[in-house]
């Protein structure tokens, strides 16, 4: 070690603070999150394989009634990315908080938006891989009968993944430990799962529950999937559903940014 020479560092870069998102910092953050996952191949394998295994099981559970498989299978293609990205994101951000790296990053010239967008980008990429495999398997090997384009299924799946990432980021602000973070899944996801129309069509539910389901974003995720299932073209309803899910995701991401505090007690 030769401190005398090392103290001469290259000239400091001129870095004016950006007001909005910084492209380089956002992509650097996304690359870092993916690199972390890259050192954890088992998590990636679980993320990618579990939806496929579940769809495979489902296909043969409903061996005698392929119409039921079509409807539930399409809904699940939307629900899987939401749930897995919710879990992965809430744990990842919680770890960032507890390891002190969040404190360090927020003392650096990193915008909160850069961090959140970086996470969304990284997990969005992962969700594309997950959804492509699951959709491909369902449509081409398990004979899931979609009337519309499988690409539209993929679009909804991606929006659902973003929504899951957004919700995960948001709730991690309220979780002080991994135990609490995991408990947020039954609290945030299960009610939506029950009410989203997976078990009974939403109009058949008690009016109070139907009204409640109307304000839960997962309902629109499942509706969107069913639109693709039943119609050849992109219907107006499909566009509305997709827009609602996307808006919810952006809204919750913004809320998530607001819960990141540079100063903590």
């Amino acid at each position: 070690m030769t401190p005398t020479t090392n103290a001469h560092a290259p000239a400091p870069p001129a870095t004016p603070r950006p007001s909005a998102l910084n492209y380089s910092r956002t992509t650097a953050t996304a690359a870092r999150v993916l690199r972390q996952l890259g050192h954890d191949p088992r998590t990636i394998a679980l993320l990618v394989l579990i939806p496929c295994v579940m769809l495979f099981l489902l296909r043969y559970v409903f061996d005698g009634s392929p119409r039921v498989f079509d409807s539930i299978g399409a809904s699940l293609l939307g629900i899987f990315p939401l749930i897995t990205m919710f879990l992965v994101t809430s744990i990842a951000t919680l770890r960032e908080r507890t390891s002190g790296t969040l404190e360090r990053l927020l003392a650096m010239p990193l915008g909160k938006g850069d961090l959140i967008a970086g996470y969304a980008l990284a997990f969005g990429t992962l969700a594309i891989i997950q959804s492509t495999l699951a959709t491909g398997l369902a449509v081409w090997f398990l004979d899931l009968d979609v009337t519309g384009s499988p690409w539209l299924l993929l679009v909804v799946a991606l929006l659902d993944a973003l929504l899951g990432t957004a919700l995960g980021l948001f709730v991690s602000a309220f979780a002080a430990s991994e135990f609490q973070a995991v408990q947020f899944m039954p609290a945030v996801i299960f009610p939506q799962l029950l009410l989203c129309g997976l078990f009974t069509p939403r109009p058949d539910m008690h009016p109070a529950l139907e009204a409640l389901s109307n304000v839960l974003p997962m309902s629109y995720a499942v509706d969107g999937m069913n639109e693709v299932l039943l119609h050849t073209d992109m219907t107006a309803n499909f566009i509305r559903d997709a827009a609602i899910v996307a808006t919810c995701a952006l809204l919750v991401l913004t809320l998530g940014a607001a819960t990141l505090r540079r100063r903590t007690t």
Partner: protein
Amino acid sequence: MMNYSSKKPPPAIQADNLTVTRGHRTVLRNLDFAVPHGQITGLLGPSGCGKSTLMRAIVGTQAKVTGTLKVLGHPAGAPALRSRIGYVTQAPSVYDDLTVRQNLAYFAAILDPGRTATERRHENVTRAIADVDLTSHADALAGNLSGGQRSRVSLAVALLGTPELLVLDEPTVGLDPVLRRDLWDLFHAIAAQRRATLLISSHVMDEAERCHRLLLMREGEILADDTPEALRTRTHADTVEAAFLHLVDEATATDAHHKEPAR
């Protein structure tokens, strides 16, 4: 407020009536002090006296700070300061599931973003790894390193850019004497050649002798703010350790004396 002559550079850190509460406890009480520019200031005090809290206030990550705290001419925590301060938290804050080099590359990309800076970032990262003597472990996962090695990775992050102020919370704790000496040589080189200001907390008293100035803290208050030499002379002690013990004992005795009638 103190007045400084025009010849002297303004202090790097200036606190007036600085108070911090954490939970229901007042952790720092009405602190007034100045940390001079371009020098190494040691922050010493018993465990729990508020050293880390003070450092968090300076880098702007501590909530519920009242009074004035100016850092490099800006209020502490101002966005303009974020690229000018290097900060090492007491617990190593690195990603355990990234290698040493990947950790540093990420933080470097935050400090100095953009494709055009790739070359410079690479140099900075390699230099920072060499500075903390981890070149042979550059491709090891941070989670697989020893405790001292992990805290050196954390330190390397703060050495990445060219910060004008380095706030280091116990950077040499748990390191061997050879490495500690080398790091202190590095700190002195940074102060001398880059005219950077360093604020370093420590429990190791022979390190205190190597600081230009010392801030002695006890229970959220500043006991002394002086050069090591002046402290020794004032307390008729041979070492800073003896001077420190003398001052703490004196303060404890005064406290006991003052509290007696109140009870």
